[in-house]
Every structure is written in C-alpha cells, then in structure tokens.
C-alpha cells in the first residue's frame, strides 16, 4: 500500500470527487457561471482539507453541462491553494489523450503539490470527446488499453522505448519531470461490470469502482474478482488499494437529506442521461445495504462501515455536488463530514 501512499494504520480514507458538472438548480432553474463553478470547486477543495478530508479529485468531461474539461489545470490551482489533501483526476480519459502529456501534467502537479498527485485513468462513459479530439469510436477498447499501458510504463521508467498503434513511437525518450518520489499512484477507473475490474487485476493496479445505485453486495463480486485476478497474475492483492465511489449527501436527518438532494440528482440524471432517478430506487437507497450514501451522519457512518466490512477497501470517495447544489449546502456537508463522519470512521477502521 505504501507505493500508493496509503497507510493501513490510518484506516479508511475519505475523499470527494467532482465531475465538474454545471447544471441548473432544479428549484430556481438558474445556472451559475462557469467561472463561479470552477472557483467553487477550488474553494470546496480548500474546505475539504480544513475538515480533514484525505482526498480530492476532479473529473474530465467534454460535453454540455460540465466545466472541468481542463481538469489538470484546476487541480494545479487546487494544489496551490492547499497543503495536505491528496489530489487526483477522477477520471482522466486516457483513451483520447497522449499519455506522455498526461504524465508530464501530473508529474508537474505532484511537484507543485509536494507529492500529493495521483491519476485515476478511465476510458470515457461518454464518447462525444472521440469526435471532438479526433478519434474513432471503433478503437474505444484498444485505445484505452494501449494508452493506459503506456502510462504505466512511463511511470515505471524515466527513459522509455515503446511503440504502439495510436501514438508515435518513443525511442530512448526521457519523460520528465519525474514526480517527487519517483512515481505516481495510477489507478484504473472501473465501471459496474466485473470484466472491467478483472482487467485492473490483470494489470496489478489499484482500482476505483463507481457505484451509483443498488445493493452494495452487487459490487462485491467485482472487488473479489479484482483481487483474485491480481493474485492469479502474480500481484499481491494486499498491496493493491481499492476505492469505491458514489453519490453522497448528508443532512441532520435521513428524511431531510433525501428531500434536499433528490431534485438535484433527479434533474442531473435527466439532463445528462435522459432519464431521471426513480423515486422508488432513491427511496430504497435509504437502506443501509444500498450504496446510495444519502442520509443522516449516523446512517452514512453505518453505510460506509457496512461497505468496509464487505469490500475491505481503502478509500471511499463521495460525489456530493451533482445537480446544481448550492455552495452553502456543500459547506454544510463538509462540516458534517469533518465533525461527525471522519472521527467515527477513524475510530472504527484505524488499526
């Protein structure tokens, strides 16, 4: 775990992720400016650090209703505004980027932040960026595997010889700057399907799995398959961290949390996926066995601990800013996390 800057004795890490969504507030129909949204994301990271949150990550999305296309630029601003919190992408779409440039960006981010940068690399849940950046959707799978593999190789060695299909060959290429401690934690972003988790296991890299709804037990198969595959391919699963990600919202009571956040999640899903979040599914999310972390501080604590029992993961990351949630509500969430949730998680999971 040390290679990935995770210390078992500290217990489960708590992080935040934002996809930089830029959605209207469902109550007012109004949308803040892109500038304000980006400033608020930077502010959110500062507040998260002050509250003791361990990790903050920013996603890359090239489509309507998003603002963090240049996520590494925003991460650099956050690096400058903070001192301790770990920083990452969530995720970097490696399929349509040049791994050399990504590495240069994130190694630089690591130097700016004094060794706090990580990369979570994904393969795009939306494919509009393939057209935008000049790639063929037919190469979806292969683009990702080849470029992710190159990214890992650059991380291993400063001087690299490489040739592939989607990028010019590298001959004794020196990829600099190097991160503060020689290498970066590079994670594979995994969707709901176990096949994706298995590929992370084959590569022997840390896995971050997105869990947007449904019973937590449904994701156990992926986590187990990941560790088993890692073992079968000569990697030691006990050195490979797992992170789980999902919707999060906390308020005084579970009922209040549901009331406050449902309109945001529903409208956000409707605008981005074309389908709202069903009330029935959302109501079911109040059960401790469901992955939806919407509730009172106590309920959130119980849910995260229940998932911790199931998965034995090292990091939970929360998406709490989806759907035009006003900033004062996000601040209140951070307060709950710092005052109530983090101390409880530490108490139960730190060794």
């Amino acid at each position, binding site marked *: 775990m040390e290679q990935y800057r995770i210390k078992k004795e500290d217990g489960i890490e708590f992080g935040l992720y934002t996809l930089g969504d830029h959605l209207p507030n469902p109550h007012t129909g109004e949308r803040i400016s892109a500038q304000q949204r980006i400033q608020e994301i930077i502010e959110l990271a500062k507040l998260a650090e002050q509250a003791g949150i361990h990790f903050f990550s920013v996603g890359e999305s090239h489509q309507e209703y998003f603002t963090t296309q240049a996520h590494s630029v925003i991460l650099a601003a956050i690096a400058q505004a903070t001192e301790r919190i770990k920083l990452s992408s969530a995720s970097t779409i490696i399929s349509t980027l040049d791994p050399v440039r990504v590495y240069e960006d994130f190694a630089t981010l690591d130097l700016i932040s004094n060794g706090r940068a990580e990369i979570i690399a994904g393969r795009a849940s*939306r494919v509009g960026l393939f057209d935008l950046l000049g790639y063929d959707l037919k190469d979806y799978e292969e683009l990702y595997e080849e470029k992710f593999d190159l990214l890992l190789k650059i991380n291993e060695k400063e001087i690299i010889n490489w040739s592939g299909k989607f990028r010019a060959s590298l001959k004794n290429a020196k990829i600099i700057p190097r991160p503060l401690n020689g290498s970066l934690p590079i994670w594979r972003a995994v969707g709901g399907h176990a096949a994706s988790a298995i590929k992370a296991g084959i590569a022997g890299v840390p896995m971050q799995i997105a869990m947007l709804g449904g019973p937590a037990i449904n994701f156990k198969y992926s986590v187990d398959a990941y560790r088993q595959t890692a073992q079968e391919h000569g990697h030691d699963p006990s050195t490979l961290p797992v992170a789980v990600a999902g919707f999060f919202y906390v308020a005084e009571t579970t009922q209040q949390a549901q009331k406050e956040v449902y309109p945001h999640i529903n409208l956000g899903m409707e605008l*981005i996926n*074309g*389908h709202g979040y069903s009330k029935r599914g*959302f109501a079911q999310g109040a059960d401790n066995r469901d992955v939806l972390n919407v509730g009172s501080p106590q309920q959130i604590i119980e849910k995260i601990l229940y998932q911790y029992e199931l998965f034995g993961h090292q990091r939970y990351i929360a998406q709490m800013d989806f759907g035009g949630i006003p900033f004062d509500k996000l601040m209140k969430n951070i307060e709950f996390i710092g005052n109530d949730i983090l101390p409880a998680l530490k108490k139960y999971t730190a060794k």
Partner: protein
Amino acid sequence: MKIVGISGSIVGSKTRTAMNYVEKELLDKYSEVDWTLLDLADFDIQFSDGRNYLEYEGDTRLITKAIMEADAIVIGTPIFQASIPATLKNLFDLLPVNALRDKIVSMVITAGSSKHFLIAEQQLKPILSYMKAQIVQTYVFIEEMDFHRKEIVNDDISFRIARLVEDTVVLTESYAKIRTDKENEYDF
C-alpha cells in the same frame, strides 16, 4: 399525453398504410393526444455504435429523443424473412436498455401471410419486455389480402385498430395515474 407512431421499415407501403389508419383513429377520437408519426423511410438513421442516445446527431437524435420523450409508442412493422426489419431493430439498439420503462407500447404487424403471426410474439415482445415496456397484449396482425391499393379492405382489421388505439390511450392514462399515485407516496 405524447404518443409516437413508428412505421418501422424503409421499403413497402403496407405498414405505413396501417399506421395512417392508426393516426386517423387516434386524431378523430382523442384530439387531446400529442401524436407524431415517424416513418423510418423519411429519415436517415445511422447504425447504433453503442454511444448514449443523446450523443447522436441529425435524424438519429431526433428519432431517439422523440421515442424517449413519448408516453406511449405504437410500433408498426412488416415481417421480412421471418423477422422484424433491421431498420426497426436498429432503433432499439440505439436506445438505452431501460428506454421503454414507464411507456405503453402497442403493435401493428403487417405480413405477407398468416405464417408470420408468431414473429411478434417471439421477436418483438421479448425485446419490448427486456426494455421494460408495458405491452398492450393484443396486437393487430394484417395480411396481404386485407389491403387493396393502399387501403384496408377488411372491416375486422379496422375494428381491431380502433380497439388497439383505445387500449393504448386507456392504458397510458391508467399507468400514468398509478405512477403518479405511487410517486406521491414519497415525501421527497
């Protein structure tokens, strides 16, 4: 209430003819319904490449969006080679897996002979079920001999179309009410 009719083939005229009857019946009796008839022959629709339907452009986006925004869909399809046409299947492939959840779907089938009457049962219904549609169980099956010069000449077919339209509207209203009542039980 939004109802979308689909004429699911780019060749031939019988399905379109049948759908014109559906349209007339619906507009005559249910003027409040917001009806759109999409004849696939009038559009240039690309093959599904797996992306989210909102990411298509042109006719493909127009058609998929219209279907996704409908409360009910009347699917008209011919039977070709003991199968639904590829044009219609492509439409399903363009949509998300649960695209038809909370939608009423009814069917009008045209075929060269009665030999094809099970195609709707064995091919179309499983797709609709998988995509979570509420299916109007009784569909209208129309044979070659029921048409003459782009008109339906069998009164039984006309009556059956009238009943299909009525069932589609009634079920759409009923399910909408059931859903609203259920949604109102939640306090968020």
